[in-house]
């Protein structure tokens, strides 16, 4: 573990990614403390450019709301949805992939055809349909993003299980009479974790992009403001005030970039075979 952390911190992309993510997490935590009035509060004249008014460093939107407050509170929503959707996708994907890969045969066939079906439907369009049909709220958005993200995990976990179940240590577990559930959970799954962790960080990035896209189309939870909502609201005024789109846009890009950098760094650090070869 210590060796792994050492390797992770030697990768510049992982360090940059972690640094940005910690900053985003910090502003998400600090949002209710620094901006207790929330992102909807009107604090000044509308359409003030960043730096124009003291105390409003990022300016105000068309309704005079503080953009800085929106960025802080938006971080909470974007991170919450990204992490929760990934966690849900991990639960479904690991369960499906582990069962399919471990048992093989017709179970594998059935589960993989279902996975195929989910991968055939264009993911973003499926997310749109789910949100439209079940009505937009934070929990349906999380559900919709999880529904489009789990197949990637399932395929990965299945491939790992197919490989690992043939190994000697699994055979010896069987020999001493260990049950299937115990072998799956305590023996194979821990060995399959590295690629799952890497994929999870990439999936969180994709989830944040998907949420931003849904909110941009007006399919966000109407009771909360996310970065995507801010971009969507700023769109009609972007000719005169492009900062309305650019500032929340930068927030999305930086966060997604950080998650991808962290994923790359984790991949290098966890891939010991590659490490030794270098």
């Amino acid at each position, binding site marked *: 573990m210590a060796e792994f952390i050492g390797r992770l911190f030697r990768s510049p992309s992982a360090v940059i990614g972690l640094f940005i993510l910690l900053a985003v997490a910090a502003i998400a935590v600090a949002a209710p403390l620094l901006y207790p009035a929330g992102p909807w509060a009107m604090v000044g004249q509308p359409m003030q450019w960043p730096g124009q008014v003291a105390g409003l460093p990022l300016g105000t939107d068309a309704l005079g709301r503080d953009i800085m407050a929106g960025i802080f509170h938006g971080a909470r929503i974007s991170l919450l949805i990204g992490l929760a959707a990934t966690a849900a996708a991990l639960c479904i994907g690991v369960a499906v992939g582990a069962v399919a890969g471990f048992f093989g045969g017709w179970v594998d066939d059935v589960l993989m055809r279902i996975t195929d079906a989910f991968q055939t439907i264009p993911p*973003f369009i499926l997310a749109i349909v789910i949100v439209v*049909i079940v009505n937009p709220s934070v929990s349906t958005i999380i559900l919709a993003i999880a529904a489009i993200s789990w197949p990637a995990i399932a395929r990965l976990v299945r491939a790992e299980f197919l490989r690992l179940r043939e190994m000697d240590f699994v055979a010896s577990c069987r020999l001493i009479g260990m049950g299937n559930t115990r072998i799956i959970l305590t023996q194979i799954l821990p060995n399959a974790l590295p690629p799952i962790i890497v994929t999870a960080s990439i999936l969180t990035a994709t989830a944040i992009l998907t949420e931003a896209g849904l909110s941009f189309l007006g399919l966000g939870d109407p009771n909360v403001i996310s970065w995507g909502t801010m971009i969507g609201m700023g769109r009609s005024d*972007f000719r005169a005030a492009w900062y309305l789109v650019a500032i929340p846009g930068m927030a999305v890009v930086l966060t*997604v970039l950080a998650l991808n950098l962290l994923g790359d760094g984790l991949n290098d650090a966890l891939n010991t075979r590659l490490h030794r070869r270098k």
Partner: protein
Amino acid sequence: MSTGLTTGATGARRRRGRYLLRRLGQSAIVLGIVLLLQFTLIHLAPGDIADVIAGDVQSDDPEFIIQLRRDLGLDQPLPIQFAFYVGRLLTLDLGTSHAFNMPVLTLILDRLPATLLLMFSAIALAFVAGAALGTIAAAFRGRWPDVLVTISALLFYATPVFLVGIGLILIFTVWLRWLPMSGMYVTWVQHTWWSLAVDIARHLIMPAVSLSLFFVAIYTRLMRATMLEVLSQDYVRTAWAKGLSPSRVVLRHAARNALLPMVTMLGLQVGSLLGGAVLVETVFGWPGIGRLAFEAVFRRDVPLVLGILFFSSVLVLMVNLLVDLLYTRLDPRIVLR
């Protein structure tokens, strides 16, 4: 010797036929599951078609709604309803859009050419740019062109497509006034064949670039990785040893072989390309299926949304089959199973 070759060829053809049948069978099963999923989604929706129609004609007469349910078969058990649903879809009856008051299929087919044009331009652009950038990065591994390409790819990958679109409009329409902001062609002038093509091309540039950037990133990373792998192989070393020029080794010997995995990627990306098209067409007012999906969502037109979902899934299945077949033609070493 010659007989051996002939049986080999017939064997290969028979294998190809069997493979095609198996893939068709698999696709049919997948399509069946997609239909089941859609059917489930319909039943998750609050209220049913009868409520929607009753709402449209502004009737709350319970007798009318019961009659309507009976006419629509909604009083039948679920498996029978599902069978009817599959039957209707297989005869390409996708229902009627209540927002447009037109058959869903007609609406989709009207918008299909615009979307296909956009998707094809975007993916072609991504393929060419990705192959070029990836080759450059691999050839200059670790030096500044590689660093530059890698950083750009990371940025392209992290930027939402709609943000790219808005940025392009700001630069090329609002500030520079070079390109039209939205639509597919100018409607208020009389077009000749040629001027229409030019006009569509001018309208197409920004949407196609916006849609492609994410895929440029994917193809660049894939091409770079494959090129590095290929460049380390023995036959490339032989090419260097023969004294061939660097450009000849990199382009003729390495890049051609590195292109194969890129073709596989094409098939995998159709689905996310369609999803991106929804956002891009919304930003640019491009009159395709994506824009139609946005309008359907905006007006809560469930039959139209589901029709688009079904149609785009079929499109993805067909493209995947096509790419599989293309792939076996491109690389004769691939064994069909």
